[in-house]
């Protein structure tokens, strides 16, 4: 009879555990006092520290709004924002890569900031127009840019000197010429040991490499977020030019993706690379004496696709919180803070009225600020950018693999158009 009390106790314990597992959490009581906002962002490097200081300064400068930041990686934000907002556990302000914004905005995740932009409280009129396009869907702005920088050419000064090249190329022909000189196949086995220019053909940095090349020839991907203009003479010209450079002159490996191109450059195996501001610190860490230059001008234009990051107010925020967020945005876009943020993040200033000499402390920023006017937002206002970019990746990857360009352009045109409806 010893078993029965033990059994009864065990049964009770098990039932208690089951009961505890089923009990819900009690709701937290609302605190009184200043409006509390949570801000998710993915600035995980030194730039995150600068942003934190800006937020702390804002919190200290007034009593009505207090912002608390949570730093996660961009990928984690993208994966967790949706479930968090569904459970009302999401942030009030969230920053994300620019091309993801329209997807969320279209689904009602962000608050419309049109009135705030209209009132020009925060100096929004001084913002780079293309940067504002990046956060606009169907005429309504849903966010504030926190970073907007054109892709630029990073080149290896040591390899340039070895090949006798003194200046960075400024036109496509000069660029191709330099790339050919910098492609070295010492053992003659058909596979160069050193490539002149790392040109990925899919999953490129911010998906912006090939659009930049299209812009250079006078072409584009999408017009007004409604019409596909992929199948054009200009795009054909750009593809012909660079595909033959890759396949015939072997200036770059085929089948490369953006990350592979980063690695080729930082391991010194490619003399030139098209990338973003982070390549500056990566190059330095890998001991590469690097220079930054604008994307060379094509036959029709000099333009580069921009890498953009923006922040918006989520639908979870009530009116008081939206006002608080807008106050923070106004503070963030003020001239002094914008300069501080530019120097700290290593990206050019968001305001067009901040001159290059105001950011002269950081030479990378100066170089990029000079290039900034050539930047163009990629697919502004396009909601289904995932399918559009997939179609473009298909186009460029197959073209570099040697398939017929006319047929590919036609297929891509259809695919992009059906993604835009």
């Amino acid at each position, binding site marked *: 009879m010893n078993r029965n009390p033990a059994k009864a106790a065990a049964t009770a314990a098990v039932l208690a555990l089951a009961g505890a597992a089923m009990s819900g959490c009690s709701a937290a009581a609302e605190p009184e006092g200043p409006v509390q906002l949570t801000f998710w962002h993915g600035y995980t490097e030194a730039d995150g520290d600068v942003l934190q200081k800006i937020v702390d300064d804002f919190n200290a400068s007034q009593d009505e709004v207090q912002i608390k930041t949570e730093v996660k990686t961009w990928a984690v934000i993208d994966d967790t924002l*949706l479930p968090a907002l569904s459970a009302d556990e999401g942030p009030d302000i969230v920053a994300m890569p620019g091309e993801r914004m329209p997807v969320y905005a279209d689904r009602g995740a962000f608050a419309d900031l049109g009135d705030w932009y209209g009132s020009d409280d925060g100096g929004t009129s001084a913002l780079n127009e293309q940067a504002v396009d990046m956060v606009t869907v169907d005429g309504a702005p849903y966010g504030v840019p926190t970073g907007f920088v054109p892709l630029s050419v990073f080149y290896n000064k040591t390899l340039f000197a070895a090949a006798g090249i003194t200046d960075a190329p400024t036109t496509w022909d000069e660029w191709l010429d330099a790339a050919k000189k910098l492609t070295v196949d010492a053992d003659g086995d058909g596979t160069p040991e050193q490539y002149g220019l790392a040109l990925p053909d899919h999953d490129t940095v911010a998906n912006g490499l090939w659009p930049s090349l299209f812009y250079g020839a006078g072409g584009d991907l999408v017009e007004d977020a409604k019409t596909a203009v992929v199948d054009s003479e200009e795009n054909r010209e750009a593809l012909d030019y660079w595909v033959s450079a890759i396949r015939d002159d072997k200036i770059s490996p085929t089948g490369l993706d953006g990350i592979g191109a980063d690695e080729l450059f930082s391991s010194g195996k490619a003399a030139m690379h098209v990338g973003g501001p982070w390549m500056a610190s990566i190059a330095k860490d890998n001991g590469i004496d690097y220079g930054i230059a604008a994307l060379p001008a094509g036959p029709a234009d000099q333009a580069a696709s921009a890498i953009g990051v923006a922040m918006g107010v989520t639908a979870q925020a009530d009116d008081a919180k939206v006002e608080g967020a807008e106050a923070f945005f106004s503070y963030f876009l003020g001239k002094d803070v914008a300069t501080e943020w530019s120097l700290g993040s290593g990206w050019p200033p968001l305001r067009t009225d901040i001159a290059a000499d105001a950011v002269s402390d950081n030479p990378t920023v100066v170089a990029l600020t000079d290039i900034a006017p050539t930047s163009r937002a990629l697919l502004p206002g396009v909601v289904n950018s*995932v*399918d559009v970019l997939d179609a473009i990746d298909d186009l460029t990857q197959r073209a570099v693999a040697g398939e017929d360009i006319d047929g590919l352009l036609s297929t891509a045109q259809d695919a992009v158009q059906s993604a835009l409806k």
Partner: protein
Amino acid sequence: MPRTTRPRYRPAAPLGGRTPVGSTRRTSMIALAFLSPALVILTVFVAWPMLSALRLSFTDASGFGREEYVGLENYVRVFTDPDVLQAMGNTAYYAILFTPAAIVIALVLALLVNHPLLPWRGAFRTALFVPFVVSLAVAAFAWSYLLDPQIGLLNHWLRGAGIQLGNVLQDPVLAMPAVALVAVWKSFGFYLVIFIAGLQEIPGSLYEAARVDGASAWQRFRHITLPMLSNTLAFVMIVALIAALQAFDQIYVMTGGGPYGTTQTVVMEIYTSGFKKLELGFASALSYVLLLITLVLSLIQFRFFGRREKDAQ
């Protein structure tokens, strides 16, 4: 005359003695109490999400609360969207590559490792099982470095032997076999262990009798090993097929569905639709279609092997 009591007729007691009245119910209650934590977890984390997903599959939900009932629209789209149809074709191709390869390799190695004369059997078994313990995503990273056209060891070694691999993961023909290979490498250990267990259940006397009758190794395999293994084979085939239909990890890491969508599987498509394009309703519908296909295929296999087992007996 001494009084003798004749024993009354009693039916044979059931094993463990006769159970007193009312105790069956108490035993069930206790059993239920011990099962309840697991049942609660299963309900909360499996059953409830499944029902929720079923509801979502009939809406155009994006996860932000604004959703409308759209009836069977998502399901119609599953069978008409060219990307989805390509993904289904790819998944079928992947299953055809993965399932026979994993099972045959596991079976052959099980037969070898089970051989009575093999020394250090334990060491071999462990070595063969180790890949299964590694996380598939980690294995996929390692393999993508091995196959890298610039720095990959495999490319380097094979170049020495005169074979130019090129960029395997971006080759529309080689990419799918490559990702299937990684899964086979990682999973065969599990099936190997199950086959070894199955092989050890076969009585040695059957083999001796066959040997005495003059049966060759192949005949012994065909007429003794295979029929006696049919239960195990059935289990392994169903499990391998289910795993193949759910391929995601290594494809996400190694090719991202490329090149040109040739390695895009159904689960990759679910992930892209649900989390990249925020089309939760459609993703849920696609998940359910996958579930139904898996269920039907498993039932077919189950039936097929059920019949064979009866024949074997």
